[in-house]
């Protein structure tokens, strides 16, 4: 029934009752009563008209609705009377609900939202474990050789696929466009349970070495690059310079998460959307490599009902067989690591998210407690009114309803505002998504988030409304009405509840402040740690050489050499160097160096990280040489190497390695390397830890198509971006230069997410602090007002202002102190979760812990001093006279 119908029916009922009342009156008059008396008699006979109307409404079945609207109207009237309280309460709840909703949306999207694949919970990623190398690589990608064996013998999988993703140039024109290509074995279609939208999937025979020149386009690439050409099937496109026949187009809803960078959250998101799916074919030599080709991303679909544990056991058995049959010089202990696809993509983002969510919930809790406190104070002020209501026969249930209706309206308004707040916060969090999971389009607040906000509103009302409701329902009208009206102070029990609430607030705030302090200190340490290299006046660029014109090391090295020569001639350039990766953007390739005379099987050898660099690399980023010298152009073609301190100590313990030799790869074909220098251990892979064992080889020995260019300038580096691009293009205009930026920016970007985390926490902690201060202030002010007469009496009897101050401060700071201790306990309890996110900072750091407590005490003191001043300025005569 709509409200306007209800109104009409009610008017109708009123008319009916009125007319019947008139009849009754007439009848009474006919009985001989005078006019006036007849009217009263009729009214008496008829009874309470309003009550009859209400009772009749119940027969219509919308009494509940009516009661609700009455409640809302009543609550609104009450709230309108105290706009300050209303505003503070709504804002508090909105902040708490908004923050929690926004973080929850992010957490849901990252950790809980199912991946957009059929039965995504059956998808697992497969990694290999090699016990001998586990100190550096806990897990490794999959080898094609092992994969073939698993495919033949495993029984736990519906299907399996290996994949690789890297960008290649598409087309033949002057500036070929780079597209990201996933090269996958044909099993990918049954693993993901997806079929092309147009055309067909590639077959097993098309995934053989030599016949793998077919391609399936992603919908977006097809519609943009090929303008949705309906006749695309059968046409030829050029990938990396080679012809590929298009056999299919994937459905528009199909998106593939990026297979790279799933482990690092901080990495600037530079991955392009996937453009093409092409077969991954293995050459005979590849397939024969038993331990050398651990390079591929393994994805598999478990058979229904098979657990990850069972599948792991299955593959481990196969790995054992493979390990047992390895030749003596490659002996290794193999096993696998299976992880659900979702967990792999989430990577190590779980913990920061959990901490942020906990912080947001903490903020909400502090907000709720504050609102409870405010409501309690109001309830105490309305004691008389409530007692009258109870005396007039309001039932206990009605009293509780009375207590809850205000908070319900507040929470509804708060959650509404909170949703608005969250909706504006959520899109800004897109960048916080791990790049691997950032493939589902823009992040926005959805029904899940809105539902979360509403649920939080309900919880908040119950939480904040419980204490006042309990207090009200316990109202003993007689007692209240008998007690000396305005003299009645707050009951002891009530005061204890309010102090406990302040204690909780303070505890949560201390924990939040401490957490923020820890993360901030950690970030400061991370940014100021001795990196071992410098970033001043250094600008960087990345280049991606097209494969068709640069398919061998010689051509690439020639290109790099030409660019460096021209770069050096640019005005303002001090040094310029190429390396396989920019600092903090990669480590290099892993391999085992064999010192002369070491005859262990290669798998038993220590694993080092290899990096190719040009001659000026060390002087460009000021990476310090401890001994020896660097490469020079005169050494061109010679097999020389520099090693890091760690490598020197591990390979040649107690010896000076300069002049000594090592080899790697196949000693029969590869010439040995001579060590010419030792480089200081730095933090070029990650700021958080010292580099692993590193070996630097010259770029004339080996290069890759992607490289990082570093240029140290004498002037402002930002002006160098254009000259650098132009110089590269003056050597070859076809080389894409996707990015030019300052090295300092690269460093800053590497901690972008830690910083984002810290800012959010800072915001939460500051809000919680403010609320806690407000809470203390509210409680103390209230008790000062309540004890106005007592204080006046004390002063009249000779108490000094200082005594009054002490009295109020003790009263107010006691719950703060107790709460601070509670907060420490809370923080220590969660220390383990936090400590793994900290860099060179202990969660028990005494200075930070003491600092957090001091901050809270300071806020508490400020919150107490204001009411204390008010108390001390009480005029005793005035106070005693008012009652």
């Amino acid at each position, binding site marked *: 029934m709509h409200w306007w119908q209800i109104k009409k029916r009610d008017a*109708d*009922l009123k*008319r*009916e*009752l009125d*007319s*019947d009342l008139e*009849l*009754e009156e007439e009848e009474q008059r006919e009985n001989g009563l005078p006019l006036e008396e007849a009217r009263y008699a009729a009214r008496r006979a*008829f*009874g*309470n008209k309003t*009550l*009859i109307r209400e*009772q*009749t409404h*119940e*027969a*219509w*079945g919308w009494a509940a609705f009516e009661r609700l609207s009455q409640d809302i109207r009543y609550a609104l009237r009450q709230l309108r009377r105290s706009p300050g309280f209303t505003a503070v309460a709504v804002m508090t709840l909105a902040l708490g609900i908004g923050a929690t909703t926004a973080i929850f949306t992010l957490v849901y999207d990252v950790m809980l939202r199912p991946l957009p694949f059929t039965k995504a919970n059956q998808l697992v990623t497969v990694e290999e474990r090699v016990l001998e190398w586990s100190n550096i690589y806990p897990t490794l990608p999959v080898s094609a050789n092992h994969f073939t064996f698993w495919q033949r013998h495993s029984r736990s999988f519906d299907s399996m696929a290996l994949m690789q993703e890297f960008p290649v140039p598409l087309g033949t024109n002057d500036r070929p466009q780079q597209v990201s290509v996933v090269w996958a074995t044909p099993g990918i279609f049954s693993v993901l349970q997806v079929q092309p939208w147009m055309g067909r999937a590639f077959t097993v025979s098309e995934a053989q070495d030599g016949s793998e020149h077919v391609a399936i386009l992603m919908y977006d690439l097809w519609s943009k690059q090929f303008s949705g050409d309906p006749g695309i099937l059968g046409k030829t496109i050029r990938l990396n310079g080679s012809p590929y026949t298009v056999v299919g187009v994937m459905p528009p809803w199909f998106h593939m998460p990026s297979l790279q960078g799933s482990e690092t959250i901080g990495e600037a998101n530079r991955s392009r959307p996937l453009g093409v799916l092409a077969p991954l074919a293995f050459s005979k030599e590849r397939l024969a490599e038993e331990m050398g080709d651990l390079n591929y991303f393994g994805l598999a679909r478990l058979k229904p009902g098979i657990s990850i544990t069972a599948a792991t056991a299955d593959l481990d058995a196969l790995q054992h067989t493979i390990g047992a049959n390895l030749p003596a010089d490659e002996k290794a202990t193999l096993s696998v690591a299976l992880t659900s696809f979702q967990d792999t993509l989430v990577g190590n983002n779980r913990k920061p998210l959990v901490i942020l969510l906990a912080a947001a919930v903490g903020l909400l809790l502090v907000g709720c407690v504050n609102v409870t406190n405010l409501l309690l104070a109001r309830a105490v002020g309305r004691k008389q009114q409530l007692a009258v209501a109870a005396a007039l026969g309001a039932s206990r249930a009605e009293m509780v309803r009375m207590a809850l209706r205000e908070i319900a309206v507040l929470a509804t308004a708060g959650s509404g505002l909170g949703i608005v707040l969250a909706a504006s916060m959520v899109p800004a969090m897109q960048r916080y998504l791990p790049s691997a999971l950032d493939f589902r389009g823009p992040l926005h607040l959805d029904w899940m988030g809105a539902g979360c906000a509403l649920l939080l509103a309900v919880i908040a009302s119950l939480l904040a409304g419980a204490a006042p409701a309990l207090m009200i329902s316990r109202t003993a009208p007689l007692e209240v009405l008998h007690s000396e009206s305005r003299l009645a102070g707050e009951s002891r029990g009530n005061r204890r509840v309010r102090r406990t609430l302040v204690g909780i607030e303070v505890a949560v705030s201390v924990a939040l402040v401490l957490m923020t302090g820890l993360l901030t200190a950690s970030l400061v340490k991370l940014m100021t740690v001795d990196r071992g290299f410098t970033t001043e006046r250094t600008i960087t660029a990345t280049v991606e050489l097209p494969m068709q014109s640069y398919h061998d090391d010689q051509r690439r090295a020639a290109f790099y050499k030409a660019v460096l020569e021209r770069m050096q001639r640019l005005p303002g350039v001090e040094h310029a160097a190429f390396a396989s990766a920019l600092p903090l953007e990669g480590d290099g390739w892993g391999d085992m160096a064999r010192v002369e005379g070491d005859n262990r099987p290669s798998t038993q050898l220590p694993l080092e990280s290899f990096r190719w660099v040009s001659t000026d690399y060390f002087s460009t980023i000021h990476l310090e040489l401890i001994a020896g010298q660097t490469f020079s152009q005169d050494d061109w073609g010679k097999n020389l190497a520099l090693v890091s301190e760690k490598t020197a100590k591990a390979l040649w313990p107690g010896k000076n390695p300069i002049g000594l030799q090592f080899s790697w790869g196949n000693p029969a074909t590869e010439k040995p390397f001579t060590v010419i220098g030792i480089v200081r251990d730095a933090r070029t892979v990650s700021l958080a830890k010292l580099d692993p064992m590193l070996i630097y080889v010259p770029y004339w020995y080996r290069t890759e198509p992607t490289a990082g260019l570093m240029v140290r300038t004498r002037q402002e580096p930002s002006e160098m971006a254009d000259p650098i691009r132009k110089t590269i293009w003056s050597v070859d205009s076809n080389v894409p230069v996707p990015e030019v930026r300052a090295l300092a920016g690269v460093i800053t970007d590497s901690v972008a997410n830690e910083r984002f985390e810290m800012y959010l926490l800072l915001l939460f902690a500051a809000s919680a602090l403010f609320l806690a201060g407000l809470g203390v202030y509210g409680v103390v002010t209230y008790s000062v007002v309540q004890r106005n007469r007592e204080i006046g009496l004390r002063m009249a009897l000779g108490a000094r202002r200082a005594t009054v101050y002490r009295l109020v401060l003790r009263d107010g700071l006691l719950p703060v102190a107790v709460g601070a201790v509670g907060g420490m306990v809370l923080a220590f309890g969660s220390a383990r979760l936090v400590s793994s996110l900290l860099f060179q900072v202990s969660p028990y750091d005494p200075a930070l812990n003491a600092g957090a407590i001091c901050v809270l005490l300071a806020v508490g003191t400020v919150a107490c001093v204001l009411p204390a001043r008010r108390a001390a300025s009480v005029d005793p005569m005035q106070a005693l006279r008012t009652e």
Partner: protein
Amino acid sequence: MAKQIQQRANLLQGTLDMLILRTLLYGPAHGHQIGKHIQRSTNDFLQMQHGSLYPALHRVERRGWVTSKWEMAPDRNREFKYYRLTEKGRKQLTVEESQWKLMAEAVARVMWPTAEES
């Protein structure tokens, strides 16, 4: 008086509905007439309480047993809300009547067993 209140309270809800329907069997009537009729027919034993009459009227209307319409009263120049028995209401009345009869007989059998046996 106390006794009467007690008995009124015991007047079952369903019974009041039945009485209303029975009253309307004589023809359309408005609330006041219905109340007075029940009161008079029972020699004032059942005093109509308006607090239960109007909810009952609206209840039977919602169930579709009666319809209502504002009509001019034949004897005076005023409109009253007249309730009229529907076909459904007529059927309901027979159902309730027979149920009431069964109930009354059953109660009577327990209360005055000798009368039954003789």
